[in-house]
């Protein structure tokens, strides 16, 4: 079992969190083409290398955060700290309050990525 570096709770057992997968930039819903939506929804790098991914701290702080993990060795690097702007700014980083429901997360993610 991996120890996942949650920025708020510190290292936690992997089973306390849920991996949501690669953090993929969300296209602009007003202008995105069908192909861009398809790519956003389905296409993944899936490298045997470093990947920036989103985790949900399911039974802990119930926050979403992104972190880099190596998909062959499973090492983590650059774990974010509370208050950090996590991940690459082109990614939709989903942050929700302590009420953090999935719905809240979706609502938030509708903000345009910068």
């Amino acid at each position, binding site marked *: 079992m991996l120890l996942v570096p949650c920025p708020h709770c510190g290292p936690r057992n992997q089973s306390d969190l*849920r991996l949501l997968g690669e953090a993929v930039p969300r296209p602009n819903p007003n202008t995105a083409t069908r192909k861009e939506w398809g790519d956003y*929804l389905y296409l*993944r*790098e899936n490298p*045997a290398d470093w990947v920036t991914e989103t985790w949900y701290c399911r039974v802990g702080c119930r926050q979403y955060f992104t972190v880099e993990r190596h*998909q062959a060795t499973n090492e983590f690097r650059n774990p974010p700290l509370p208050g950090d702007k996590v991940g690459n700014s082109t990614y939709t980083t989903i942050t929700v309050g302590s009420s953090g429901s999935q719905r809240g997360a979706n609502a938030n993610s509708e903000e345009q990525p910068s």
Partner: protein
Amino acid sequence: MVSIRKPNPGPLRYSAATLARKGLSGDDWPRVWRDHDLKKTYDVIIIGGGVHGLATAYYLATNHGITNVAVLDKGYLGGGGSGRNTAIVRSNYLTPEGVAFYDRSLSLYNTMAADLNINVMFSERGHMTLAHTDSALRTMHWRAEVNKLQGIDSSVIDPQEVKKLAPSLDVTSHPRYPILGALHHPPGGIIRHDAVVWGYARGADHAGVHLHQKTEVLDILCEGGELAEGKGAGGKVTGVRTNRGDISAPIVVNCTAGWGSLISNMAGVKLPIVTHPLEAAVTEPVKVFLPAVVVSGSLHVYVSQTDRGELVFGASVDPLATYSMRGSLSFTEELAGHILELMPGISKMRLLRQWAGLCDMTPDYSPIMGFTPVEGHLTDVGWGTYGFKAGPVSGEQMAECIATQQTPKLIAPFKLSRFETGELVGEKGAAAVGH
């Protein structure tokens, strides 16, 4: 539909007479397949020496007479998922496209021992998917109806019939997840996966295909594409770079399952695949008591007993996307807990081994087969947790696709472009746990 050209897949026929002759003469058996020097050029390069790559090569040679073919594997033949799976074979899928496709594979499995002249130990023992909730039972009815419409032997049975088929199951109302019924599929069963791999390898070798083990593809060479080095859409494949040198070929087929994203990325083709490990475990052998394959979706577990008496267990994929094939304690713990809910009587049996293999998971639990935006680069990937049973039909259809340069009808629904057009072939309900 093209049929397999029979027989003579090997220089030496395996039979009781051959065994006796060898025994009396003391002659050794010849190597099952040969090693070759790497040629500079092939007509077709197949990356991945699992059941899919080998079957594709075999049918290219035997059905279409295309023999200037190389199968490249970075390790040994059958070292990927093809040697790590739990060997469940069935066709009771959920979509009409899936059912037709997997049923063709089942019929190829039925005649395989004779066609390939190798004992594949196909045991048509029946496959049972248990329903523990009303909604699961509803899905079973749905599957049974889809199956029946296509002539597949598949029906919903009640707990008493379940008990008759597998007396060791607890069908009382005591468990947390009581058994309410099951989808029963008599033609399903298990097979000796290694023998299937060796059978295709031997047949392909004899037909003139070159099998290259320990030959790792490091890059796919392209020209004319929109990305760097001529890769990507609009371009075409010219060959591959390997640890043993460059080879040129107009057609390069990706049959690398769990490693599929890495290979297609080399041609500038991004796939809707995430790689997850799937774990399995096997117990010490005991007297045979479990006649059918038993799957429980709600408990995330399935079990069958080999002819040697070991119980083979599996589950759904590990939640972590990774290329690491390490086993985990949490898998064993959960597996043991769940299996004991089904069969309390085996609590003192010992696990002998546990292992993992890589699964190339797609969003709709269906494969990605055929042409890509790069000319000459074809994929036969997205096999997830369910691709072993598809080996024969995939080989047959991919060979036809390569030989005719047209997508055969049976695999047309599995085209890569479905993720752009939204024509997904949703098989999750029939493939997430019961592989």
